[in-house]
């Protein structure tokens, strides 16, 4: 066909991506199916996964809760930004982006400083006579950390979707007798579904795999699948079990994004731009 020549330009890229995304996933499968000591084929690692279903369930729970909270917090903000003047939109968009560019380790650490028993918030509470309360090392703190870190991932796709909604549709709905609330429920909300789905995916995926947030803000109970994988590689010296766990995580995420894509129209690239 007419563009045959330019199509050849994609060949090196395809080779690169196969070499550094597909093949590594194959290596993960290989490790997951071999014995750490002998290097022989085994189902052992997959059998060992049995003790981690609880951890996996907990990770999914935390991330889903965080994604929903992000949605509730992010939607009004995205809606607000989308209805500013173009200049204001650009500035606000940048302000949402900016935290994403800064070291998330340090920002999480700042939360530790805020939440810990001897931290800024508790110092303040003690000062006004309320007394110190347990903030850090609670499930709430982990959810807070996730919401804080991944909220921009929710706001940006939501904004991108809402800003594209034709204002004439709102007028048409009003013309047909919808009240403000009805306009929102019957027109705006259904039209922002793609943004909602992509936002949920974008929050859920990093949240379900995080290990730093739970290590820093969680207690001894808040062990997430990411922690377990990190520990298998960095301390437990069992990359094979780690690979098996990564495999589970990957399958989980692919199922999730698959479901999301099924419900939403898959606009390529809409999520980030």
């Amino acid at each position, binding site marked *: *066909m007419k*563009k045959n*020549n*330019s199509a050849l*330009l994609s060949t*090196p*890229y*395809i080779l690169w*991506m196969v070499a550094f*995304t597909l093949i*590594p996933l194959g*290596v*993960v499968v290989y*490790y997951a199916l071999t014995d750490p000591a002998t290097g022989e084929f085994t189902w052992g690692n997959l059998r060992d996964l049995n003790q981690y279903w609880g951890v996996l369930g907990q990770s999914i729970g935390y991330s889903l809760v965080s994604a929903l909270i992000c949605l509730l*917090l*992010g939607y*009004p*903000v995205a809606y*607000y930004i989308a209805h500013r003047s173009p200049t204001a939109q*650009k*500035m606000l968009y*940048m*302000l949402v982006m900016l935290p994403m*560019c*800064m*070291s*998330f*380790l*340090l*920002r999480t*650490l*700042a939360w530790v*400083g805020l939440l*810990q028993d001897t931290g800024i918030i508790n110092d303040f509470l003690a000062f006004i006579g309320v007394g110190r309360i347990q903030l850090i*090392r609670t499930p709430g703190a982990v959810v807070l950390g996730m919401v*804080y870190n991944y*909220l*921009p991932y929710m706001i940006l796709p939501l904004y991108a979707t809402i800003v594209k909604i034709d204002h004439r549709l709102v007028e048409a709905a009003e013309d047909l007798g919808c009240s403000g609330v009805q306009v929102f429920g019957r027109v705006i909300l259904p039209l922002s579904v793609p943004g909602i789905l992509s936002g949920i995916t974008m929050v859920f995926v*990093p949240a379900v*795999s995080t*290990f730093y947030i739970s290590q820093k803000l969680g*207690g*001894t109970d808040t062990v997430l699948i990411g922690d*377990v994988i*990190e520990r*298998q590689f*960095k*301390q*437990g*010296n*069992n990359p094979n079990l*780690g*690979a098996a766990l990564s495999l589970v*995580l*990957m399958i989980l*995420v692919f199922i999730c994004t698959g479901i999301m894509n099924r419900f939403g129209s898959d606009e*390529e*690239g809409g999520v*980030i*731009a």
Partner: protein
Amino acid sequence: MKKTNRIFTVLIFIFLYIPMAVLVLASFNTGKDITDFEGFTFQRYVELFQDEHLLKLLGNSLLISILASAIATVFGTVAAVGIHGLKPKMRKTVMTLTNIPMTNPDIVTGVSLSLLFVFVGTKMLGQRDSLTFWTLLIAHITFNLPYVILNVMPKLNQMDVSLTDAAMDLGCTPVPAFFRVTLHEILPGIVTGAIMAFTMSLDDFVISYFVSGLDFVTLPVEIYSYTKKPIQPRVYAMFTLLFALIFVLMLTMNLLQLRSDKNKTERRGKTITKGQRYFRRLAALVCLLALLAGTGYLAFGTRQEIITLNIYNWGQYIADGSDGSMEIVKAFEEKYPHIKVNYSTYDSNEIMYSKLSNGGITVDLIIPSDYMIARMIQEDMLLPLDFDNIPNYQYIDESFKNTAYDPENKYSVPYTWGTVGILYNTKYVDEADVTGWELLWNEKYAGKILMFGNSRDAFGIAQYLLGYDVNTTDRAELDACAEKLKEQKPVLQQYVMDEIFATMENEEAWIAPYYAGDCLVMMENNENLAFYLPEEQGFNLFIDAMCIPSCAQEKEAAELFINFLCDPEISAANMDWVGYATPISEAKQYLDPETVSDPVAYPGDETLVNGTNFTYLPEDISRYMESLFMEVRND
């Protein structure tokens, strides 16, 4: 409705920026702790620019992100043009492939790439060094590419196809047509893609954490290990500067874009394409910088006459020049100018062991503990030392020779020794409760107790408490220990290693078992802290010794370094800061007499008889213990 929405939005923005404000504030704090603002100072910024180590890490991070984003931008743009020309079905497949790194969790991407590099490099090609600068660069390019492509593709799709046709119609061959026309049309996408790739690369922690070796470490990975120790306020200063830089960068970009938008609607003159020219200049500048950085690195990296000595040591385990101490590494480099030290840290024997046995890195010198040395000897992971290069070995006290872990004195030279006891805060902990290891199970202090985050030390405490042999190979006993440790979990604040410094010093936690030398350091920083050794129940008496792992490439230089550290004067200067006990009696004359007589640092023989050494555990027992410990923690 609108008003509440506005207030809500403002609140969310405050929420997003509070932690940043805390960090910025902390960079001007005279105090070290993030939570107490003691006074205003610029000192942290001065320190930052004097800290070569930190600046080098920042340089590393900038180098890798500029190179990776520049390569990904060019590569990705070319690829996008190619993908655009593919048939729809194939295009869809390729876009799915592109989306894999985007949808896959970072941890999976990191794990899979590190496994690939180790598998190919170490297992297939037999390289020692399979995790290098280059593999890190490959990883960064790989996760940068989708950002470029996903930003360029929509621009290509939007572009009027007949524009390229028009250029060819007017005499351009395809390549010039691309540069004269297509490039201009998709440039905004390329610039956005490049900037996103750059910031993602600069801030990436998870993937780099898994993929980087020891010779080339980026800032976020180092910050991760920093955050375990009391974090140096100069890191906040760096954060503040980076924040300001990125803020200004984004602001200028936005303003430029706004201005060029305005130009579009208002301008009539010849200077119409100013906005785009700025873009072009920016892009050219970024490319140029990348090129310079790249060639600079290559020029630097290929300078052969300099030997790089890779040392992998515990955190906080060598005098680093702070608090008026001697900077040991620098002193060594001054004495041997042809050797450059590359220093990285771990915080437990197990982490070090994992890193080495996973392969893919080069390390010339490590300082493991006794039982780990035994294990590594057993597994052929250490090289016999050439004692001709270590004449200072003569200063090592006889009592530290012919040890159980290295009976023939072939593989190790003792570095420090010490005990493991309990550090507690006298302000909160009732002396009456300080009766033995059971203090760590005391519900009265629930939520304020820390515990070792490594299996051997944690099981050791349970074994002393239950009266078992710490070197047992009896699985039933280990099971019982695991039960005991599970029992402890509800009262624990967290499992830690070096995080203990920060948490104990700022009194976030009150009770923790740790190594005596480090306890001394903490006690110096917080006078409420005290050290207790449960003599009746028994305690661990450990020796950490310098060894050369089998992956070493600069054995001779490593031996020089060992020799240097065994110089009594150097050892004294080092131990003065580290807080641990020196195995070199000659050194004691240079130390503060008060330290030498301190029973925490140098317990008397009558105490020492109650201590036991950890010795070698067979491979299967170590694995069993580790898996039990994982189970305890994941329970």
